[in-house]
């Protein structure tokens, strides 16, 4: 039987299949919207939510390089989210010497960073949190959250974060914040994601005191 079109049927079928899959996925995908406040009801920024179950393999196109810049004696993006296997570089954009280090279990390293020498990077090959400091400027502090999966996000100034494209179903996630107790970090939160729209999950975090070394200089008191 002669075909009514000159187009080969295979691409059309593939195209239709892809659309079906795409629309199907959208139709059955929701999002997790977490809102975090502290005990005083204030929004908690820079908290991380990572879905730990079910585990999905990392997609092939996930970026595996990232950087944590230093400008004006501070880490510019002091909370960086990466996946396992990412190489992180520490470009020193100051005209002075920094000496970046970490004692963390997830990665121990030390990088003396002379200005202009920004090529060295660190491979983060274990999930966990890498606390980064500078040996020259004790007040400088950064955190790199190394996730096992790509399903993670950090909260903004309103204490909100969104993890999109989650097929409907039950999930377990963890919440991390630099000032959260270890027992609260290891706690699993369970949620059932609906097949469309955002599933809201409000949580109150009990944060410890903001303990960091101050940057302001001490006096130069002298008495001749």
């Amino acid at each position, binding site marked *: 039987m002669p075909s009514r079109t000159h187009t080969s049927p295979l691409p059309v079928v593939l195209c239709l299949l892809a659309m079906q899959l795409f629309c199907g996925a959208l139709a059955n995908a929701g999002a997790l919207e977490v809102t975090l406040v502290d005990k005083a009801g204030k929004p908690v920024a820079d908290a991380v939510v990572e879905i730990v179950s079910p585990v999905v393999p990392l997609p092939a196109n996930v970026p595996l390089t990232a950087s944590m810049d230093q400008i004006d004696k501070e880490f510019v993006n002091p909370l960086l989210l990466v996946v396992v296997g990412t190489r992180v570089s520490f470009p020193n954009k100051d*005209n*002075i*010497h920094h*000496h970046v*280090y970490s*004692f963390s279990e997830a990665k121990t390293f*030390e990088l*003396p960073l*002379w*200005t202009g020498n920004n090529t060295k990077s660190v491979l983060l090959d274990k999930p966990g949190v890498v606390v980064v*400091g500078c*040996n*020259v400027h*004790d007040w400088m502090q950064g955190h790199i959250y190394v996730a096992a999966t790509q399903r993670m996000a950090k909260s903004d100034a309103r204490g909100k974060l969104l993890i999109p494209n989650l097929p409907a179903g039950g999930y377990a996630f963890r919440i991390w914040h630099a000032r959260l107790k270890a027992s609260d970090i290891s706690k699993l939160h369970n949620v059932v994601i609906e097949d469309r729209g955002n599933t809201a999950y409000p949580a109150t975090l009990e944060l410890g*005191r*903001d*303990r*960091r*070394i*101050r*940057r*302001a*200089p*001490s*006096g*130069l*008191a*002298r*008495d*001749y």
Partner: protein
Amino acid sequence: MRKQALLIVFFLAPALQAAPGAWEAGLAATVAYDDNLPRAVDAANDFGDLATDLEAQLERVTALQPGRWLRVGGSLQGKAHRDTRGLDHLGIGAQIGLTQKFGLGALAPRVSLQLESNRLQFRNVLRDGWLHRARLGIDRRTSLPWQFGGHVAREWRRGDGRRADVVNPAFGTAVFDQNNVELGAYAQYEFSGGARLRTSCRYRDGQTDSSARPGGVLRNVAQAITRDSAIGQGYVVYRVAVRTLGCAADVDLPLTDDTSMGLGVERLESNARAGVRYERNLLRLQITHRF
């Protein structure tokens, strides 16, 4: 010594400019009250005065290797008194220092050695001279809030001897040639908002200048005597060997990332031979800014 110090700075500056390092500048303004400015041993001679002190510092900080820094710099200082104008002075100094941090991180102990040479010019030239100092210090943060430290310092002061008048032929007039050794220690607590509370003590063994009207007990312990036109009419200044114990409490608040304000009190008790002693209480308010 002063020429050598200036030459070192002169030749080191271009070399340091080429090495990886940074310029650091600081400014400190202090208002201080000293309740016994003449270091008098009796109530008849002591008086208090308020002074304003401004000090600017510029340093080239060079990382010789990770954890080891060389600091070379200069400072300019001016101090003005409310009443005792003769003690107003300008100071210009050169410093060289080496800091070594043993290990990584904020809790790693650091040891620093500093040598400095200062030229002091007073409104009344009697006290003009040089002040050289060598200081070895150690600082150790044991946790984020707690920090402890100590120092040992040696000071050499050499007066020019200008306008030094003989008061008693049995004594020389080099009152402002003084040597001192100082030992000190401090404990500091930093609150989560950045406020620092520091208590410190220092012990000084050496010589000082003490002023009084003639006829007091100071003559019995004096090493040198001259007329003191800077402190006041009829005053005489004695060089006395003393042991001083000073204890201080300071609160220091961050105002911005690079500015802080400190308020401190210090009580100093000095003992000379033969039961001669005096006390001083200092109150100071200081603003420090780093550029």
